């Protein structure tokens, strides 16, 4: 008798716990009834506010995996099984490289309204191979210089050379993504990113390493943002509206500019994996992202804001103002695209970046 008052009390918690987790395990293994697609995306596509309306309308669940940088994405694909992935959001400048690897399937241009996309953004040279569309441009913005107006002058920031000027030693943070930063230095040195070759590396390398001497940190978006916001650094090389737009309301002293030499424009595109077994559902998702509602939600996604590719995006005036909608023509003109490296050049650039980090 006494056994049951005293001892099982010890087990009861465990029994309960075990039971609960066992049930949970069974639930987790139960096949999901809804159709699911897997998307490999930049983090702005992970926002529930973006995904939920699509799932509600179509019944298709979207599993998202976010990455930063094409190298990471390709590594993830390498480590997956064929058919794992359905939708791919990738930097426009890397679309060709990805197509060369046979990763993307052609998409039907009839899915979307192309007319609402500015030509510079449409960039058929980037998104089309052999006359077929492989990915649609969906969002863009700038890698330039974000800074604290109270600490450094806008005039200085408009000079590309300030990125490696020793007078800012210890006040600089660098965004940890090799393509935009290398592109930005190339632009700052007066090069044309479209013509960038391995021969240009030594010049960029020199400035890159000079910049590292000034840098307090090299880090991801949020760490860099935090450093800027806490006053740890005054300058964020590679920063743009995506980095400071969300901070401006509370810290109006934070701002960003395109240097006079020009800035770098990031641009991402969305496509469907060649070995996807759910190309229809994937196509529906692509169409949704490029629809006016999808574009509006994507532009103001919680991870970062950016310009929608589709100018008919259903944005409010306030949102358009934050995105500096009206200034876009000038911005686009004043900016170049990322270097679009071959596999070989990409390896060289990544090695350069590894070396840079270890300086």
């Amino acid at each position, binding site marked *: *008798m*006494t*056994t049951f008052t*005293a*001892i099982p009390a010890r087990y009861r918690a465990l029994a309960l716990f075990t039971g609960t987790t066992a049930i949970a395990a069974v639930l987790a293994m139960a096949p999901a009834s809804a159709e699911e697609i897997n998307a490999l995306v930049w983090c702005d596509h992970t926002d529930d506010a973006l995904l939920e309306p699509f799932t509600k309308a179509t019944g298709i669940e979207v599993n998202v995996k976010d990455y930063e940088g094409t190298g990471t994405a390709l590594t993830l694909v390498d480590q997956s099984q064929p058919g794992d992935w359905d939708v791919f959001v990738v930097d426009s400048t890397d679309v060709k490289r990805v197509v060369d690897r046979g990763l993307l399937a052609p998409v039907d241009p009839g899915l979307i309204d192309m007319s609402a996309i500015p030509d510079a953004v449409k960039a058929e040279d980037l998104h089309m191979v052999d006359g077929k569309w492989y990915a649609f441009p969906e969002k863009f913005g700038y890698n330039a210089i974000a800074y604290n107006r109270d600490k450094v002058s806008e005039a200085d920031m408009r000079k590309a050379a300030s990125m490696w000027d020793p007078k800012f030693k210890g006040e600089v943070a660098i965004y940890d993504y090799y393509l935009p930063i290398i592109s930005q230095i190339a632009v700052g040195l007066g090069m044309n990113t479209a013509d960038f070759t391995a021969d240009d590396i030594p010049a960029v390398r020199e400035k890159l390493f000079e910049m590292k001497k000034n840098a307090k940190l090299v880090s991801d978006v949020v760490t860099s943002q935090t450093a800027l916001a806490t006053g740890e650094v005054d300058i964020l090389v590679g920063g743009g509206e995506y980095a400071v737009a969300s901070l401006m309301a509370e810290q109006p002293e934070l701002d960003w500019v395109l240097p006079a030499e020009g800035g770098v424009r990031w641009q991402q595109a969305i496509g469907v994996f060649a070995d996807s077994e759910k190309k229809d559902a994937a196509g529906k998702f692509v169409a949704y992202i490029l629809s006016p509602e999808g574009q509006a939600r994507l532009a103001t996604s919680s991870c970062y804001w950016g310009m929608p590719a589709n100018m008919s995006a259903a944005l409010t005036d306030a949102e358009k103002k934050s995105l500096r909608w009206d200034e876009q023509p000038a911005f686009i003109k004043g900016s170049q695209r990322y270097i679009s490296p071959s596999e070989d050049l990409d390896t060289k650039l990544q090695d350069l970046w590894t070396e840079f980090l270890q300086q």
Partner: protein
Amino acid sequence: MSAAQDMRLSGVAKRYGETTAVEDIDLDIPAGSYVVLLGPSGSGKTTLLSILGGFTVPSEGRVLLGDADVTDVPPAKRLTVTVFQDYALFPHLSVGDNVGFGLSVRRMPKQKTARRVNEALTLVGLPGMAGRRVHELSGGQKQRVALARAIALDPAVLLLDEPLGALDLHLRRQMQDELRSLQRTTAKSFVHVTHDQEEAMALADLIVIMKDGRIEDVGPPDRVYRSPRTRFAATFMGESTILDGRVVACNGGEARIETAQGPLTVVTDLPAGAGVAIAIRPEKLLLRAAKAGETGLGEATVRVVTFQGSFARVTLEGNDGLAALAKVAPEAAPRPGDRVALTAAAADLMLIADDSRRAETKGDAGR
């Protein structure tokens, strides 16, 4: 579970690598007897108990229970139960669950178990204690619960490993009486390990004296006390004064023996030339000159006199460095330094074959 059965060890030895724990063990434990294994620590008595209980499988020899060979039958399947030195009561179970443990692992119905538990607890004088927690019990009560737990299983043989070692003297004497009466009531064989010779004498039907892994002597307490087979038995089972001597002549069952304390005569058929030892119990050693029918053992000097209540303990040094011990009435005690004569009645001279012959005499120790 079972009626009492004879248990027998035959030619048992246990070795651990180079060391030998026990050797050459032949022992009969008659059904219903109270056997005490007595010996100093390291004498192998606990190993022997462990072999009886099935915890240790002997390297040689056989263990028989009734007619069955149980040499490598595990404890769980053997009709023996051990009461451990530290009781080994399960701290996480109540008294009742401890006592009922053996029944419950055999899936005995609950009601029946409860009845048996109560019977066993009543038998050890703890009726109605089933609901108590183990840590609420006193040492004596724990001892009784351990006994009840063993008895509840109705074993053929109950093995007790120094069961009273943790109790104070008073309680130990009381528990001895209870153990004895419990054994009588249950009519089971009890095998009890102790190093306390008084405890052994108080309890045993049969005392087994062990030393260095061998049996030195086996017999009823009075026989072992009065006529120990070995020198060790004579000193470990009660104290003795030991005289070394040699048979000089043997004549019709009476031998004349020469010792450093003088010649003496004992009943034996040992041949002339055999080395022997004569043991005298302290209460039989008289501190006065010999009278008729007694044997004089020379003179001795009193060294230490200790008052022990009903008697005085006198240690003396006799001829040829003899260490002698006597118990005398306190009022008759000599003083240290006195010279006194040593005397013993002829009947109180206990003959022990010399150590050199022990191996031969031991052979029949168990019979």
